[in-house]
């Protein structure tokens, strides 16, 4: 095996390890499902992982960096360098299909596509909450209870058909 194929194999294996690192705030998802792992590079001196944080004030960012470092270290891919990359900004559009399925199974309504921003200088404001389908029974008859939930990324809803409350991962 030459150096480039071994590096590729190492990268694939490192990605597989990242599949097992849960997001601390939505543990149903791995950091890879969430779309915050932007790059993995295996080199002579160890492994470099590039992460893009979700929210500016997300308190989990530092925990995620540490978990990624520990998981790859434990799997023998250390020393690990975690690099944070701010641009382009993370968006829920980067959550994988697999991630969306896991969210729904976990009882969280996944985000719809991010609506395009109005042109600069044009501030249009949505006054009514978004309609979201119930992740349990699929009904569109739901109402929002709270714009923010246990974390900034989620809102609280209630299904009027099956009467279950649920969380919605907001598109951002």
């Amino acid at each position, binding site marked *: 095996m030459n150096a480039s194929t071994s590096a590729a194999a190492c990268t694939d294996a490192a990605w597989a390890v990242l599949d097992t690192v849960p997001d601390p705030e939505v543990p149903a998802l791995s950091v890879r499902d969430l779309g915050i792992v932007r790059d993995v590079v295996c080199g002579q001196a160890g492994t470099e992982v590039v992460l893009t*944080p979700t*929210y500016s004030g997300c308190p989990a960012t530092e925990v995620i960096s*540490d978990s990624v470092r520990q998981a790859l270290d434990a799997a023998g891919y250390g020393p690990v360098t975690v690099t944070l*990359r701010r641009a382009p900004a993370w968006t829920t559009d980067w959550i994988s299909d697999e991630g969306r399925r896991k969210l729904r199974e976990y009882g969280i309504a996944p985000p719809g596509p991010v609506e395009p921003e109005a042109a600069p*200088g*044009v501030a249009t*404001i949505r006054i*009514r909450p978004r309609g979201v389908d119930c992740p349990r029974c699929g009904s569109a008859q739901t109402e929002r209870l709270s714009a923010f939930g*246990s974390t900034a990324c989620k809102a*609280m809803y209630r299904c009027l058909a099956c009467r279950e409350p649920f969380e919605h991962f907001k598109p951002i």
Partner: protein
Amino acid sequence: MTSTMTSPSTTATPPRPAVAAGLAAGVSGASRGPGRSVTLSGSREARWVLRLADTCLIHAQRLSEWCGHGPILEEDIALTNLSLDLLGQARALLSHAGQLDGQGLDEDQLAFLRDERDYFNLTLVEQPLRRSSAHAPGGDFADVQVRNLLLAVWLKLHWQALASSSDAELAAIAGKAVKEARYHVEHAAQWVVRLGDGTEESAARAKAALERAWPYTNELFVDDELDAHAAATGLGPQRSALREAWLAAVSAVLTEATLAVPAASKFVSTGSRGVHSEHMGFILAEMQHLQRAFPGGVW
């Protein structure tokens, strides 16, 4: 505030012991010992970025005072979440301002160790929001939502303009913040409509809150030499250029809320130039107390 981040990329190191870092790093010269005030270099870019950073920082602090005091639990959660976003934006901007300032000051030193005249936030954000006084009545839930609407729209217009800043780091910070600001604007707008177009009591209180905040909004659109410099170098927008879009967006919400746009005032506050109202000293005392008493302390 223990880690820093720059764009397009930087290495995240494990949390460093800030006590040691504070002692070893930025503190050259006797006047900058741990716990003592830091002073700014003459960088105009740093100063311009601090205006935005400090507005986010102080607004975050005022919103966070409502934790545990919202009319419903959901609103406690919402306000603290908004506050957390603003604090995250402030952290990124403070770190960047520290780099532009060129003296090796980090986000903590800039957040906690400047004297009052070296903070450049809008005067509006430092006005009491939870505990009113004879000099500054307010402290109503309507004040929270009205102020947040006025500021969130203003900040969002900044983030949109900054997305094409000549400063790549500033553009990256704005690219993230604009997404968050969208939710801030929506949340405030929904409450302002609910209060303004609500009961007689809620409408009267929303109107009073709007009239209290309005005179401070002149400062949001006053340019000076720093704004001219920012615009000339492509760093960011002139404030005056944002007025039309701001007024259009705010007016649309007020109309929906059946609230009238208050009459214009000639008063122009001066927090952006470091000349603050009497409330600033108190909020800084609260924010700075721990860093002054236990220099370099971290969680």
